[in-house]
């Protein structure tokens, strides 16, 4: 049970800053929730309810105080086919299952898998996410009147120039209010939030999604839920890392994993879509002075207040102002230094980063991009390490004994080079293989050693292996065949 002191630290260490930051964040949540509800093909209320519920629940049970979670772009782009083919009720069911999968992942400590995701993959993930967010704004920008372009440009100008005047109030809020006033009183014809679908007018309530409880339903939603769960955890754990770095504090990744699961599980029953942590909004939160659970909670509650109490006003907000805010989030999410670093970093890491981005942009699935990036970085790593292998050999003065001195890493990628390093045509009485400075990592390496020894034996030489270090020796002892009866015959079978 957390002590009173740690509760106080996680909630009340800086209440004024946290409440202000929470309000700023709530304003930045609205465009994303509404925008991506529209992209997913559901009413804005599905995204808004989700953002409220996920923000409030992760504030209570998440593992990273100060991180903002809500309905996100990353999840929204995944569920479009599901909604188009089966309807919104299946989305709620998929969200519930997504939550269950994430809770199980928390118990299985799958958050530890993050250590295999290299920095290049993470950069690629972040850039791909920023591109997805930007691309999602394009439908609002194609085939529209010149007023829309002017308003987006004006909105961006306010967002970036207003802070030069004062940093006391959030400039995205100023942009939204100014552009709303302009459209309402200036009578400018642009899309408004109300044109995009139904806004909520009441508090969300619990209900069971209206889907048949059959095997077919599970088969339909499971692939979606798995991808949603994976993408959600990836973005959440990555964002937690960013908030950790910014605040120089640590977080409980396992608790965060379970917390995301609980939040999505409950959100599905409230009629919301799945969500996860948001990089852009979490950075906004920290930048505005928020670092505790209180700011996350305030962002969720204030969002609900905005949409339920000020709903009629929210429905008149012009879409171009929200597009401007989302372009800002996209710019803030993108890692601009990565472009500069393309020329400086090793080419392998650039390839990994670009591959991750390319796969995500073509598939709209962040999970596939990360898998591609991780595989590629694994391959590059293996190809680098397999070069760390050297063989030297000397012939004794009487010409009867050849000593091979091996050093470096022997594993699946370097086994062929290991075997090729021996001269089997040479006629000697005795071969000494000194492996004291080599390490045998896997079955392939042991198999390679077997092959070498048996080949020498069949050529009539005595073979002696010296200096197997402890880890190698266990592996060799357990899996090698050269020291077991019938070894010479076995080689023919291989």
């Amino acid at each position, binding site marked *: 049970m957390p002590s009173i002191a740690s509760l106080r630290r996680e909630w009340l260490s*800086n209440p004024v800053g946290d409440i202000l930051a929470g309000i700023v964040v709530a304003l*930045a949540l609205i465009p994303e929730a509404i925008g991506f509800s529209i992209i997913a093909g559901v009413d804005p209320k599905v995204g808004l309810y989700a953002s409220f519920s996920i923000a409030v629940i992760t504030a209570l049970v998440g593992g990273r105080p100060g991180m903002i979670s809500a309905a996100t772009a990353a999840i929204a782009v995944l569920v479009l086919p599901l909604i188009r083919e089966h309807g919104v009720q299946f989305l709620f069911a998929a969200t519930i299952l997504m939550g269950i999968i994430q809770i199980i992942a928390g118990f299985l400590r799958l958050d530890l898998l993050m250590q295999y995701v290299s920095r290049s993959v993470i950069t690629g993930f972040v850039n791909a996410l920023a591109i997805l967010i930007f691309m999602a704004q394009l439908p609002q920008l194609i085939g529209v009147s010149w007023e829309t372009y002017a308003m987006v440009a004006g909105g961006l100008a306010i967002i970036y120039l207003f802070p030069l005047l004062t940093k006391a109030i959030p*400039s995205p809020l100023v942009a939204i209010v100014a552009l709303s006033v302009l459209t309402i009183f200036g009578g400018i014809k642009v899309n408004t939030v109300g044109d995009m679908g139904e806004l909520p007018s009441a508090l969300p309530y619990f209900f069971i999604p209206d889907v048949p409880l059959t095997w077919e339903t599970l088969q339909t939603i499971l692939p979606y839920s798995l991808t949603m769960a994976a993408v959600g955890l990836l973005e959440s754990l990555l964002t937690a890392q960013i908030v950790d770095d*910014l605040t*120089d504090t640590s977080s409980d990744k396992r608790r965060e994993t379970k917390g995301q699961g609980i939040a999505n599980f409950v959100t599905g029953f409230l009629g919301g879509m799945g969500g996860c942590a948001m990089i852009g909004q979490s950075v906004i939160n*920290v*930048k505005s*002075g928020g670092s505790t659970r209180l700011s996350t909670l305030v962002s969720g509650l204030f969002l609900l207040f905005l949409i339920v109490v000020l709903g009629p006003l929210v429905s008149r907000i012009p879409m171009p102002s929200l597009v401007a805010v989302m372009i800002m989030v996209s710019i*803030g999410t993108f890692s601009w230094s990565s472009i500069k670093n393309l020329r400086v970093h090793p080419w392998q890491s650039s390839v990994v980063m670009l591959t991750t981005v390319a796969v995500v942009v073509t598939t709209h699935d962040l999970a596939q991009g990360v898998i591609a990036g991780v595989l590629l970085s694994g391959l590059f790593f293996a190809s680098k390490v397999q070069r760390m292998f050297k063989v030297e050999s000397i012939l004794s003065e009487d010409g009867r004994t050849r000593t091979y001195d091996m050093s470096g890493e022997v594993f699946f990628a370097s086994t062929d080079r290991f075997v090729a390093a021996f001269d089997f045509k040479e006629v000697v009485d005795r071969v000494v293989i000194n492996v004291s400075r080599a390490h045998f990592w896997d079955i392939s390496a042991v198999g390679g050693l077997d092959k070498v020894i048996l080949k020498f034996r069949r050529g009539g030489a005595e073979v002696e292996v010296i200096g197997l270090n402890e880890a190698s020796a266990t592996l060799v002892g357990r899996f090698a065949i050269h020291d077991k009866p019938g070894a010479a015959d076995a080689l023919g079978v291989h």
Partner: protein
Amino acid sequence: MQRHILACVDPSVYGVTVIDLTAWIANRLSASVELLHVIQRKDAVAARHDHSGAIGLGVKSGLLEELARIDQAEGKLAIEHGRAILADAEVRLRAAGVTEVKQLMRHGSIVDTILEREANATLVIIGKRGSDHQFAPAHIGSNIERVVRASEKPILIASRGASMPSSAVIAYDGSASANRAVDRVAASPLFSDLPLHIVMAGKDDDSHRVRLASAITRLPHATPHIIDGSPEKVIASLVESLGDTMLVMGAYGHSPLRTLIVGSTTTAMIRTVHVPVLLVR
């Protein structure tokens, strides 16, 4: 066994008393002393007053650099300051005749650092309030209660400008922690030549006398007192009448939840008396 004292010094007005008490006890127990100063990081996130909410090019790396710069500037000052405090403390201790003194400066929270370092200490000495709390006179530092609750060791809480004790008062209520306090006093050479008083709050009747008698058998030289009234008032008035003394008591017998609702005698005592308080868990 070599006795070892962990003394926590900070720039507050209690710092001087902590050092004087440490010297007094270290000399009586011939103990070695570790002077601990903890640098607590101010929250750089909260220190920025930027509610613009606009994020632009390179915001993540830019923000990280800015926060690191704020922390670094404050950190350097804090380290300089901490070195000076520790050096002053060591000079004062050595002047008082303590020979084995070590300095230690750590980053982190005061509570966590004390818990980390107390493992080989016989006694922890800490000021009644930290340097952040110079405004509320009858308030105890928020860290003290957390340290006392989490610590395994006896903790001596120094009050402001107190002179060295010439006697000791043991607060006794028959509870397990009070009995441990009695045992501790009986066993420790610190109290061997000090006049002892043992005080119990309540009516002077048989049941109280029987309970007090069990403590007296272990501390035959102590003067017993049974005074009617609330523990806080009874103990405080006895302490006041004795002047230069110290109070020994068992600490925090109840759960944090109960304390939250009904308050804690321990906290109240630390707050009201103006002499050093030795808390025994």
